[in-house]
Every structure is written in C-alpha cells, then in structure tokens.
C-alpha cells in the first residue's frame, strides 16, 4: 500500500466520523423543554420539562430531574445550578445575573448536550406615562361614567428593539373589574413589538387598584418563542426556540417600572 492510500483511508475515516457526529441530532420527541428568564439582580431559575403527548391532559410536562445544568457568564464564571424542586434548577445568588453580558446554559440529557445562549438587553430608556391613573368605565347595568380613555406609555426605541409590557396588580385584596369572571389572572402581559409607545386597552386590566407596569426590553427570541402558533394544518409552524437540542426559551430581559392606579 502506498502512503497516499493510507492518507486516503484516514481521510475517509475522518470524514465518516465527522459525518456521523453531524447526523447525531436529537429526535424531536426527546427534546427537553426549557423555561428561564434572566433578570438582573434576581436569582437564576431554569425549569426543565418533558414534552407531552397530544392526548395528555396534564398542564405542564413531567419535570426532568437529576440534571446538572451550568450557566456560564460572559466573563468566564461558570456556576452549577441545584435542583430546588423537581425539574427546577436554581442559582440563588442574585448578583450573578448582571445588567449586561452573555449567558450560556449547558446540560446533558441522554447523552445529548443541550445548550442555549442569551444576551442581556439594555434597560429601557425614557419610560413615561401620560397619566398615573387609568379610569375604567362602568359596563352594562345602571349608571355610567365616561368612555375608556387610554393611557399612553412611551419610551425611546431608536434601534427598533422588541418590548414587552407586564401589567401587575399589587393590591393585597384586589377587586375584580368584571364580577362575572372568576379569579382572572393578576398579571397581563402584552408583546408590544418593535414600537416605542403603547396605548392601554380596557382588556389590559382585570382588577382595580394599584398596578406595577413593567416595560421589558426583550430579545427577539422571547417575542418569537411566545407568540401564538397556528391552529390549523394550513398554518402550523415549528415554534421558535433558542435552545439547541431542546425547546422553549432561555432569555435575558431588563425592565423599567412605572405605577398606574386603576379605578372606576
């Protein structure tokens, strides 16, 4: 055998091995579902679920337990997360997630490496509101007050970044606006898109009283991963994920806060 033949065989073998590695992609059914929102100054929490069968009636998939996830920040610090609850992995030091930088999640599952990466966006700038009070008109029965006049939130968005607004009722004993609806959600979240202002709508509020309004500067990945998917075979699309070999979302976001009093 000539030398070149050996080189050829070695080369072919490398190619073969190389090819094999590439095709070793996790099947859709085995991909774990990740849910993690990184907020500066908050403890880091990563939830990992299994997917559900279409016939399953449970709300969330079964938790994936016994993982050893690590998160690496941009400056080379790598921390190990501990399982504080089934499928919930935490790193409790709130100073780990900072106001800027990259974060990478890594863990192994059934021999596959699952990873995700995110960058902390800037804090929103110049977040303002046209009024600190939001009046809700009376619906239906009996006496009336005026029409719903929206309150306008605005912020600077020269780079057409993505934003999300979370309306959170912070009353100890909140009163529902519509008595016919039993225990609606306290928090209402709106994907504002790439805009620089938002007009409130009556449907943004389920309760009366003081609300914390958080304007989050989010990454596009959050926007893409949480938008509704299609409902028919004509519109189905693979939901977006930024998790390699997985599903779900691992993303950083940063907020500014205003308060709004909602009254009737």
């Amino acid at each position, binding site marked *: 055998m000539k030398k070149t033949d050996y080189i050829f065989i070695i080369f072919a073998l490398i190619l073969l091995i190389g090819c094999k590695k590439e095709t070793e992609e996790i099947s859709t059914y085995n991909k774990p579902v990740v849910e993690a929102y990184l907020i500066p100054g908050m403890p880091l929490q990563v939830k990992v679920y299994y997917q559900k069968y*279409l016939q399953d*009636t449970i709300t969330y998939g079964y938790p994936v337990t016994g993982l050893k996830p690590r998160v690496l920040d941009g400056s080379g610090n790598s921390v190990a997360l501990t399982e504080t609850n089934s499928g919930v992995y935490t790193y409790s030091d709130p100073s780990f997630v900072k106001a800027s930088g990259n974060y990478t999640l890594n863990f192994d599952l059934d021999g596959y490496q699952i990873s995700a990466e995110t960058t902390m966006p800037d804090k929103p700038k110049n977040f303002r509101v046209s009024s600190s009070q939001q009046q809700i008109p009376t619906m239906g029965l009996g*006496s009336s007050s005026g029409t719903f006049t929206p309150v306008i939130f605005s912020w600077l968005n020269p780079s057409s970044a993505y934003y999300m607004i979370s309306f959170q009722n912070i009353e100890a004993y909140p009163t529902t606006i*519509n008595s*016919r*609806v039993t225990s609606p959600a306290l928090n209402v979240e709106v994907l504002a898109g790439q805009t620089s202002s938002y007009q409130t709508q009556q449907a943004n509020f389920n309760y009366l009283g003081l609300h914390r309004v958080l304007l989050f500067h989010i990454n596009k990945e959050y926007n893409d991963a949480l938008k509704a998917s299609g409902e*028919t075979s004509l*519109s*189905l699309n693979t939901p977006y994920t930024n998790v390699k070999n997985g599903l779900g979302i691992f993303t950083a976001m940063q907020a500014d806060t205003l308060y709004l009093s909602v009254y009737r």
Partner: protein
Amino acid sequence: MKKIYLIFGFLCAFAISARAQNLLKSDAVLNGFYALSMDRLLDTISAKAKIHIVYDKKLLQDIMVTDHYVNEHVKDVLDNICKANNLHYWVESSKTLYVIDKPSDLSRLKNMPFEQQSVKVTPAEPQIPVDRKQEIVPLSDTEKIPVAETKPARKNFSINGRVIDRATGESLPGAIVKLEYAAQTSITNADGYFTILQIPSDTCRLTINYVGYQQEIYPLSGLEAKTNVTIGLFQSIKLLNEVNVKGKKGDGVMNMDKRKISTLQLSPARLDELPNVGERDILRTFQLMPGVSGSNESSSGAYVRGGTPDQNLVLFDGFTVYQVDHLYGFFSAFNSNAVKDVTMYKGGFSPKFGGRLSSVTDIVGKEGNSKELNIGGDISLLSANVFAEKPINDKSTFIFAYRRSYEGPLYNKIFKKFNSTSESTTPQIGGNGQRPPGGGFGGGSGPTVTTPSSAFYDLNAKYNYAPDDKNRFSWSYYMGNDNLDNSQVITLPSFISGGGNISNTDKTTYGNIGSSVKWSRRWTPKLYSNTLVSYSSYHSDRDNSTKINITDADGTAREIGNGTFEKNRLKDLSLKSDWELQLSGKAKLLFGNFASAQDVSYEYSQNDTSKLIDQKTQALTAGLYGELELQPSDKLQIKPGLRANYYDQTGKLYYEPRLSASYLLTDRLTLKASTGKFYQFTNRVIREDILSGSRDFWVLSNGASIPVSSAKHFIAGFSYETPNFLIDIEGYYKILDNLSEYSQRQTGNRRTGIALEENFYTGSGTSKGVEFLLQKTRGKFTGWLSYTLAKATNNFEVYGGDFAANQDNRHEAKVVGMYRLGRWAFSATWIFATGKPYTAPLTSYTINNYSGTSQTFLTVSDKNAERLPSYHRLDASATYDFIKVDSRKVGSIGFSLFNVYNRTNIWYKQYSIVGNQVITSNVSYLGLTPNITLSLKLK
C-alpha cells in the same frame, strides 16, 4: 301511445303554423325558369339560401316543379310548392329546414341516417337564366354565397376573411381555418380575422373548425376577385344525430388543437351540460383537464402544473383580473353568459403573454348579437343571472350581463363553511373572550341577534363599434364584488342599562373593477394591429371590530369600539399594442409592446388609529416582444420568440426567450415541444390562517425582501388523433427560482393588543409531471379520461430544505362523460387525487411566559411531511331542454348533484387545545349538494 302521437302531432302542427314562417330568414331569391324534380329544387334553394334542407328523397323525387321566378324569395317559393303538394316544412333552426308530409315525419327525418338524408349538392341552374350576378343575393353585405364551379378561375392568390357565428354575428377568435388537402392553416385572431396566402387555385375549399360549432366547408370559387370573405358558422345542433364526416373537428365542451402545445380551449356554449355547484363555472371546467388540479374546492383559481393560482395570468378582454373568484373561492368571477371564448395556456406560452410563472387564462367577452335583440337569464339555488344583447345600429352592438347571489340554502352552506368556526375563535366582548355573544345576559327576554345580508355580484358590459371593414373598437367593463358579512348586532333588552346594542362587525369585501378600450385595425390584408388601454383595480377590505352602543338610564348614548382593519388596493393601468404581420405563406411575425403602472397599498390598522402596517409601492413594467411563426415545411411549425421586460423597482431588464414547435409525423400523429423563461413581478400573499383576516392580498416585488421570481419550462408531448378519439400526452419540467413566501403573523390578541410580524422567505422549486388525455370527440357519447402524474417540490431554507409544495398532488385522475338522448343531456365527472401534504403536530408543551400565564405550543412534523387522505368526488347532472324551437335551446332546466356519494373530503385539519389535550378535528369540503338551474333566453 296514440295519444302521445296525437299530442305531438298537434304540437308540431301548431308549431309549423305558428313558428315556421317566422324563423326562415333568408333574403336569397330565385330567378329564372325552372323545370325539375322537387328534391333538385330544394337542393338549389339549399345552396342559394345557405339553408340545410332535410327531406325524404323518395317522397319528393317524383314531384315535378315547373315555374318561372322573378326575384322570388326562397321563402315564398317554399311556401308555394309545399302548399301545392300538400306538404309542410318545419324550421328547426334559422338554417335547418325539414320538409314533411305529416308531423311524425319530423322525428323520422331526424333519425334518418345521414347518407339517406338529402344534402345540398350542386344546385340546379335555371333553364332560362336571368343575370347571374343578380341571382345571388347576399345574406348581408359581407356574406357571399359561394357556388361551386369546376374550372379554376384564379390561381395563386390569397384570401382574407373573418369567421363569425351565423346566428349572432359574434366574431370567433381561435377558429382553425384550413385549406383542404394543403398545408396552409390559419388561426383566427382576437377579432376573428384570418389570412391565407398562396392558395394554388380557387377550386380549393376552406374548412373551418371551432369548438362547439359545426364544421364549415367553404368553396373558394365564384368569389370573383373578392378576397375578403365572412364565413358564418352554426352552433352544434345537439338534436340531430351526429354524423361522422372525415376530418371534422370535435364539438366537445373542451377542445385541443393538436398543433398547439399545452393549450386548452373552452366553449362556454356547452358549459351547462357539465355538473356544477350552483353556477356554470368557466374556470372550474379547466380543472377537469389534465395538468390543472381539480381537488381545490375552495379555489376557482387554477393550480396549473404545480403552480399556484397567482402564477396564472387571468385576462378578461385584455385587462388583468386580480380577483378571479367569488364567495371565498367557490365560484369563478366570470359570468358564462358574457363570455365567448376561453383559452388556457398551461405552459410554454407565447411571448405575447408575460408577467406570470405558470399559465395564462385568456377570456374573451361576447361582443353582443349583431343581428337581433336577445334577452336571457338563469336562476339557480345560488344566484340569478340576466343578460341582454342587442345591435344598436348596423355598426355597433351592446351586451350587458348581471349576476347576483342570494342567500339561498346553497349560499349559506358555503358561507358557513368559512364562518361557523370563526365564531368560536373570535374573541367576544364582555368577559374573557370565552363567551359567545348573546350568552350571559340571562333573565326574561333575551337579547335579539340580527345578522346582515351578504352577497356577491358581477356585471359585464361591452360595446362594439365597427365603423368600417378595417377598424373595430370595443369598450369592455367588468365589475365583481363580494360583500361577505358575518357581523352580528345584539340588541340588549331595555331593562339592561336602558337598552343599547353590541355590534360585532366581521366584514370582508373584495372585488375587481376592470375596463378596457380596444382598437383593432387591419392596415393591409397582411398587417393587423390590436391596441388596448386598460385599467384594473382590485380592492380587499376587512373590518373585524366590535362596537358597543349603550344608552344608559339617563338617556345618554355611548359608543365603545375596537378592532382591526385591513385594506389592500391594487391599481393597474396598462397599455399594449399587438401586431401581426403575414410575411409570406410560411412566416408570420407577431410583435408588440406593453407598459403597465401598478400601485399597490396595504394597510393594517388597529382601532382606526394606529397603523401596524402601511405599505405603498408603485412599479412600472414596460417592454416589447416578438415572435416568428414559421412553417418551413408542411409538417413542421416552429415559433421562436423573445420578450423583454423592464421593471423599475429593480431597475433591471429581464429577457424571456420562448420557443415552441410542432411536427406532423403522420396525418394523425403530431409531436410538439416548447420551452421558455418567465418572470413574475406581482405576487399574491395567501394568509396562513384562512379564518383570520382577508385571505389574500397582492404585493409587488421589490428586488430585496420580495425578489422577482422566475421559471423555466421544458415541455414535450405528442397527440394522436383518430376520427373519434384524441390521445394527447405531454410531459413537463419546470424550474422555479426566487419564490417568495410572505407570511404575516398576528401576535397577541384583541384582549392584550395586537402586534404584527411580517416574514419574508425566499426559496426555489421544481415541478414535473406527465399528463395523459384520451378524449372521445364525437358521437352521442363524448368525454375524456385524464391522468396526471406529478410532483411539485419547494426548497426553502427556513423550512429545512426540500419539501412537498402545498399544491403537490402525485396522482390525479378525472373521468368526464357526456351523453345526449333526445332533449336530455346527461353528464358525470369523477375526480380522484392524492391527498394534499400537510404539517402535523407531534407533541405539545406548555411554558409560562414571564408574567406567569401558561401557553401551550405544538411541535410539528417536517414541513408538509404528512398526507391528507385521497380526494375523490363524483358529480352528475341532467339537463332537459324544455323549449327548443331552434338549434339553440331557449329554455332548459338543469339538475345537478355535487359529490353524489357524499364523500367526506378533508380540506384541512384544525387543532384545538381542550383541557390541555390537543384535539384534532377535520374541516371537510362540501358534501352532497344538489342544485337546479333554470335557463331561458329569447333566441
């Protein structure tokens, strides 16, 4: 039985006395002294007056007629000789006449074998002729009666002419005029004109064939020096037994010219014999042919050879129609009463057409009856349809047609297909969007719900003016509109807040207005031009909003409203000029130029105030083309061509070379092939979610996010024709580049506010297939078998490479049969198609968003990896002509059954999450749907 004969006899006798005299229209006269047998005289009259006279030769050959006529009208001659011999005549059409002894002779004559019937032969000359020139009195200014002679009077000459419908005077475009026993063939142009050069001798005859019309044989002798002829054709008479004449073209509803590749021609006159869902549908009829997908019930648009409907150029009298269907796609937007001729080019089309990747549907509207007033109409379970056509003076005609749907059972059935499901998904006012309107108001008298009407209508009008032999002007107008309203007004009982109402608007309106002014001129017998200015405007609006009007106790009215509004406008102003120059007997040059300015806007706004999308694009397309029609030998025909476009959005020139050829291998076997490059600058966006918003809108290529798409076609095939059958096999391969998929996804909902995302994806595709057609073209039973084996693949990086295109159908088979029995016409069509590909969910998962609201997502299979079950459907119809005094029926009733065996064909699958489970439900197409159509017309 006797009774029936009696009744029939009475009816006939009544008809003879009442109708026959009125129907014989001929200005021909007899001159001279005649002494001959009656059958010879009838033959003579037949030839002179161009009437087809049917009689029993045995009965008449012994009757002698001796008379001297001086400018005697043939009608009077007939009257006299019949009266003298105690005979009657019965005019079946204005040009077919039966001479009978007793009423029962009529059916006997009709059923008599052709050979035994009298046919016009050489007419007898009068024993003492008067001036021969006077003797031949024209039917009209241009119609000349040819009289056969034996010696050639002229040699090597050319002839120009026009082919028209003899009864209405409509010009017939696309008719095939052939010189018998020679190679010269000409196809009439848009105004029915043709030219044949280098005719060796005037003993030759022309044969003229046109879909749905009887073949005409036209002797060229006796034309004196005239080279300008008008040839009138008769519509196919269904009542007469079909006779096989060698070389006669079939008279089916759909025809193919064996020398034209990938071309289908439809005769709307015969359309009513095919089964229909509510409306005679010219575009749907093409779906019965190979290569045009027939399994898309929700689209009248054509999926041609793996292409999408927006890749099919639809022209109506020269202007582009952007909205080709009504009622969410179930019915085509063209009223068959106003359409004269439809030609579909399935691929490899002439450089005269451009701007689309896949195919061309060229619709020519009727010009209007130039001989007499005609009024007619149809009424079906879906719509009512009226038309009127009239000669205004001897130079101009007018036609008007209007069609409108009404909310009958059929309309509602289809309307609900689109709206029953949307009701539950549309968030309703009050509560959390879970409550259907009207619920929850409880107690005493409930709220009343009213829904407004919705309908579609269309209108056609055309005015034709031919000031002289050389110029023709026409103005054509089309307007079609859909007003689909699923709004609801809920009136609150007065004890709630003093009354008021909640109006939930869900209104989609769309339509197209188009108009063209055309000037055709025959500059010289060899040069013809057609110049057209046209305007087309497409609009689509969607209003999905809620308004609450409440009048409170103290009488103050308030209004609360929110919702989304969509608006799409497309305006297209075009100018084009097409020229034809007959260079020699073997070469013809087609050339022309075109320019069009398009203005497209699309707006998506919320609450009337904030515009989420506001796009405006203007584009100018201009260019020229040339095509040479060469016939280097009797057998070979070759057409090279080039089309050049300039598109100002990209500032580039686009060249489209085209080539098609055909070769007559034997008398029966023709080989054909074509190839070409095609560009498309305007794209229609189909919304992913058909239940939200207007389903589609038009955008213009901008060279960046929406590139100019292109296609290459390679087509080859052959056709084999026997007297009764036609076999046509074609294979195609198409390469598509820069295909755009534009998707728009709404995020959020009305509760939390809406954001819109636009995604532009670019990819490529291939489409290949083989089409087989076996058509029985003649006889009582006609129809065809068609089979298409095809594959359409798209390649979009965003979907991970190759995947089956949405419109991909591996196998598609269609069987169409039509049978005539007396006044009945029966037909049945059966369609089988492989299921369409779709994307299926595999698993689900749920995560919380940041604010703690859980959201469930579906993981999906590879793009279009799954297949729906096969599609198949049988339709059947029966048409009875209850009034028929003419070769054309004037009254008929049609019964039609759609989906006879009530097959559940799946349209798409719907996934809903109920109690965390993913429930799949099938949304199916129409089940068994009957329809009745009543048609009446004056002529």
